[in-house]
């Protein structure tokens, strides 16, 4: 996929996210919209996965540490054909495969069940370590929210990632600056994240605009430094793409009404590139 196609896919994914959450009447639009470029670029330009063989043992792996952004994950997997997009309308419904947080046992293409924050990097470290132990040439990707960096386990996991020299691991931080109760700084300041992750021993690539598809694609494609895990620190906009949701903490975990959805979809357009 070229960059224009990726951007088109990002629009489609954003439309899916909002439609899904609106039909469920609950869900997390803000953090789903902020990480669209990170996830689309990861799946479409980096990962070796096959929707027809979602469990292929040699496939690359992805862990959504910020599990509440499941709508974004489902939209990407659905658009790639891992399951029927008709499932979107069942999001969060009884017996649906699409729970509020990703479930490895239910959704083809999902590699880890998540939702309890701060745990994804450890699982990704285990996968990357397991790949090396089993002699598999497999790459592992994970996306974290910034709020969950307040969980101590993230420090444990990044320490281990550097210690084990996991150059088959890419940790992406969706730094949209907001969490449920306010801004990161209001709730619990995170300090200098670039320095923090560099101190752990990760190769930090900072993106001033993590919603710039070209920049994300470029960062993901940068060659790996042997023996170093890659960390993409992406400054993103929560609620990206919908003017009334952007940078609004209230849209962390609230569903748009049918009327709001209509306005949002109109703003997003149909994804056609002129």
């Amino acid at each position, binding site marked *: 996929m070229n960059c224009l196609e990726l951007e088109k896919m990002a629009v489609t994914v954003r439309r899916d996210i909002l439609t899904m959450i609106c039909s469920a009447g609950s869900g997390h639009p803000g953090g789903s919209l902020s990480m669209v470029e990170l996830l689309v670029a990861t799946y479409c330009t980096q990962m070796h996965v096959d929707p027809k063989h979602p469990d292929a043992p040699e496939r690359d792996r992805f862990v959504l540490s910020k599990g509440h952004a499941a709508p974004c994950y489902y939209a990407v997997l659905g658009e790639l054909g891992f399951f029927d997009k008709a499932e979107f309308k069942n999001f969060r419904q009884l017996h649906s495969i699409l729970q509020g947080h990703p479930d490895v046992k239910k959704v083809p293409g999902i590699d880890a069940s998540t939702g309890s924050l701060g745990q994804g990097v450890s699982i990704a*470290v285990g996968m990357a370590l*397991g790949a090396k132990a089993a002699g598999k040439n497999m790459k592992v990707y994970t996306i974290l929210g910034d709020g969950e960096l307040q969980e101590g386990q993230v420090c444990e996991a990044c320490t281990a990632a550097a210690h084990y020299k996991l150059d088959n691991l890419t940790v992406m931080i969706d730094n949209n600056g907001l969490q449920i109760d306010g801004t990161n700084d209001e709730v619990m300041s995170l300090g200098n994240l670039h320095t923090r992750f560099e101190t752990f021993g990760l190769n930090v690539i900072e993106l001033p605009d993590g919603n710039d598809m070209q920049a994300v694609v470029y960062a993901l494609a940068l060659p790996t430094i042997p023996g170093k895990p890659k960390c993409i620190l992406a400054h993103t906009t929560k609620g990206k793409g919908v003017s009334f949701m952007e940078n609004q903490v209230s849209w962390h975990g609230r569903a748009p009404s049918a009327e709001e959805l209509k306005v949002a979809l109109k703003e997003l357009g149909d994804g056609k590139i002129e």
Partner: protein
Amino acid sequence: MAGGISYTVDETTKLSTAEVYAKALSDLALQDPRIVVLTSDLAKSTKIGVFEERFPDRFYNVGIAEQNMFGIASGMAKCGLIPFTSCFAVFTACRGLDQVHTDICYQNLNVKMIASHAGTSFGQAGTTHHSTEDIAIMRSMANLTVIVPADGLETANAVKAAIELNGPVYIRINRGFDQIVNDGMDYGFQIGKAVQLMDGTDLTIIACGSGVFQAVQAARELAFSDGIKARVLNLHTIKPIDREAIMKAVQETRRIITVEDHTIIGGLGGAVAEIIAEGGKACAFRRLGLQDAFSPIGLHEDLMSYHKIDANGIIETTRALMKLDFEEDDNWEDEV
């Protein structure tokens, strides 16, 4: 794929329970390349350091970071490996619980947790290092098998059986030496099947872990001094529980005492109580263990005595139970 191991009492008599576990796992790892070991700076304490000597590239010491360890184990299991975590019971069932719950049990992954220093066996270290709630916590986790071996050889059997089982397993062992209960490995150990060590018709003592040896001692003493015939069941698997053996004991002995180095709430005693209550057959019943309390510190044997889960405590409770005016009606039909 796990092959055989067979140790005699003589071979293992100088080894603590954890040392037998380390030996068994190392020998089995030679036969099964999927086995890897993780520990949280407890290679020496949990005795798994010998595995590291034999398989340095299959051994991961993640430092003092239990939550991370269980997450890593989850990821490694997803790559087809069989990770064994070697960690204190209290830091497995309490510190790492969220990760054990979500990353391992919920995803039904093939991780084996060896939880050492369980119960009050780390007695003098202090109550922060005791683990007297872990059976209750762990048996409430869906998908998880919970095993509490009585001695070193049973631990070796449990490790072997855990490898043969595809799914998460929690094996709870003590610090130091356990009194020998089994005179070999070949007594038909099977996950989910209680081992009857003594037969009797007056009451049944159901025990696990370090309580099993004490139960046998008590039963012998009761037979000798009181003429009481006690059945002793080693209920090494808490989940899946051997309902059949428990109900048979209820029907045939009408009195049950459970013995565990653990709180009486939700552990072995709680699990047995659930079976009895739903079984529809009345019986006299007592749970021995920590009576809704944290333990003081001391040597393990002194604490067993303090909590009345040693032979003397069991004998005392048995005598009291035998004196109860309990309905001895043999007609079960009217009680269903």
